[in-house]
């Protein structure tokens, strides 16, 4: 085992696994211990881990990753409709299709770098979104979203004589995947996705990707063709997105075009940056924080705030409630935007860098001077 994985990596992986599997228990006190949100934690965790393989390792900032996420969802739902309600074929199908899609788009986009790459990915994703919304309606069911119906053919299910009563839902070997079963299903994939990402980052291939980030031109001067490496990263990352999209369709069998919009692509960028780009755990934490905010902050209202601030004197409490209410409920995006700006300005390494700095400060607690890490240049 030690030759296969370094001790640190092994601990990180095991720790991560335990934290993930125990989520229903330790998140319950935070009001997040319900299956739908837990599933989303897993799904967007996978999405962010995959995005980080591209952005974190190679430095290519894609603003169109939601397209692969959406393609994964559509592919999975079509598999449910045409083949079988079992989740495994749907996942395989979705990952393959989104990988193929990523291969084509990546091949074209990677001919450019920097902002041009970002705009190209954005343009492709917006085209996919707009088409899914309009002329591709026969495939995507447009704005309503693609749903399962009783009348779907499901040839494989029909072949083994399986029939269904009520609204069809995805299954795994006959077991339904709603609720906590769905969570553990997704959690298994997140752990697997994390493991693979960990292996990639530590492999020679991963080193090559990091080299692309630090200086692509120099790589090319040394006679290295970087394109196949970047393209592999792009495709892997697209397949991660497709996997996440497929899981979202497994836990809730509807595929809507909105999940392909550029704002959805922007969200995964936010997740990765907030958590810590280039780190393994960071993007997952970023995804969890954003999804937690989205579900919990957005549900706070004036009454809850009033109770929270009730220890303050009356007049003050009213003012404080009024101010804080702008940052929760419908205004939670404001909190997110502010947090994001602050992170980008002061903590370019995201939350993970904050954690590192705090850890470093503790370690040096005896010594007198605590120098900020050399990597960052905080704004004056």
């Amino acid at each position, binding site marked *: 085992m030690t030759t296969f994985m370094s001790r640190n990596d092994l601990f990180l992986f095991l720790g991560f696994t335990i934290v993930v599997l125990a989520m229903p228990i330790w998140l319950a006190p935070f009001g997040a211990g319900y299956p739908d949100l837990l599933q989303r934690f897993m799904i967007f965790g996978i999405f962010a881990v995959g995005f980080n393989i591209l952005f974190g390792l190679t*430095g290519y*900032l894609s603003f169109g990753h939601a397209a692969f996420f959406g393609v994964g969802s559509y592919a999975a739902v079509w598999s449910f409709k045409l083949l079988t309600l079992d989740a495994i074929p749907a996942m395989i199908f979705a990952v393959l299709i989104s990988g193929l899609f990523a291969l084509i788009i990546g091949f*074209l986009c990677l*001919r*450019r*770098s*920097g*902002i*041009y790459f*970002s*705009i*190209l990915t*954005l*343009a*492709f994703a*917006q*085209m996919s979104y*707009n*088409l899914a*919304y*309009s*002329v*591709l309606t026969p495939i995507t069911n447009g704005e309503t979203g693609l749903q399962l119906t009783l009348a779907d053919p499901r040839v494989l299910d029909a072949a083994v004589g399986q029939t269904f009563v009520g609204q069809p839902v995805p299954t795994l070997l006959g077991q339904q995947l709603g609720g906590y079963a769905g969570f553990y299903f997704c959690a298994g994939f997140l752990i697997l996705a994390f493991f693979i990402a960990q292996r990639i980052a530590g492999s020679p291939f991963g080193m090559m990707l990091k080299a692309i980030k630090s200086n692509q031109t120099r790589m090319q001067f040394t006679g290295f063709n970087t394109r196949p490496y970047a393209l592999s990263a792009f495709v892997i990352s697209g397949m991660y997105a497709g996997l996440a999209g497929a899981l979202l369709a497994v836990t809730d069998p509807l595929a809507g075009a909105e999940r392909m919009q*550029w*704002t959805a692509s*922007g969200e995964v*960028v936010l997740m990765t*940056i907030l958590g810590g780009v280039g780190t393994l755990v960071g993007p997952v934490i970023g995804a969890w924080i954003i999804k937690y905010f989205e579900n919990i902050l957005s549900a706070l209202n004036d009454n809850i705030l009033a109770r929270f601030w009730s220890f303050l004197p009356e007049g003050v409490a009213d003012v404080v409630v009024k101010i804080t209410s*702008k940052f929760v409920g*419908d*205004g939670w*995006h*404001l909190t*997110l*935007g*502010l947090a*994001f*700006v602050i992170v*980008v*300005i002061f903590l*370019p390494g995201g939350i993970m860098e904050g954690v590192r700095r705090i850890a470093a400060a503790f370690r040096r607690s005896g010594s007198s001077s605590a120098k900020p890490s050399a990597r960052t*240049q905080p*704004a*004056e």
Partner: protein
Amino acid sequence: MFEVIFLQFLNGLDKGAAYALIALGLTLVFGTLGVVNFAHGALFMLGAFCAVTVRMFLTMETVTIDPEKLSPWGAPLEVREPLVQAWLGDFGAVLVNYSVPLSILITIPIMLLVGIGLERGIIKHFYKRTHAEQILVTFGLAIVAQEVIKSVFGPNPIPQPMPTDLRGAADIGAWLGMQANVITYPVWRLIYFLFAGVVIGGVFAFLQFTTFGMVVRAGMADRETVGLLGINIDRRFTIMFGLAAVVAGMAGVMYTPLLPPNYHLGMDFLVLSFVVVVVGGMGSLPGAVAAGFLLGILQSFASMNQVKAIFPGIDQIIIYLVAVIILLVRPRGLMGRRGVMEA
């Protein structure tokens, strides 16, 4: 058929002017400061809300509740009296009627301050960072700006009526000596077109014919040499950022009668303006203008039924399709300088 194509072309010019105007400010910032400003759409939106605010002040009313009478839905009847008319009489009514064009006067100083404040406060620290980080910080700022506007003005759009004299359509065909009532176009859209032309021309003239503009252009070409000559290029660049904000803000103000502004107006235009800039060539002013018109006209023609019958859905993707093709075939865009962000 001629009149159909002519109208569609006119519509394309009208759209193109709007695109060019938005892209102009974006490319000014990129060309001078080298910063990729994802908050540019937000500046456009802030400008639009300057107009909303001005109108709100102009249409302030005193509300007296008449407890004797009830409205048909059972609430006490409110009697509203507009304050401006009460104070200024007919002149007040004229002010309210022309609130949109008037707000430009107030928008210019406000947006200048916003732009300069933004540059001095945040953007300037990002000159040396990567483009990706510039995108991220300005994207974050754009989110903050739109959420602030949302929490102040609410999520719904606030209609800004155009002056009564400028409503309705003008019969352009008749002006040009053609058959009447065939080629008509809304007056306000024609005004917007002229306005965009004047602003674009003004910016070009400013850069071309003033000493300030000359220095800025020199700085765009070679910032360090200009700095070595003892010229404070930074301050001029700051002013250029302010200018870009003013251009975006004015565009926003004049757009309000066409589209009631709401908080995500900026995000709606952001992607589009980037596509225009990239198609034109990053940092090229004439490129941005040309790309604006090109995309406007293509968008307009792609929406025709005859075209859609051949390429279904083309009206939805034409802009992105053109961007993709141009970027793949000619990476520096239509008129980009060789070597600027080329890769």
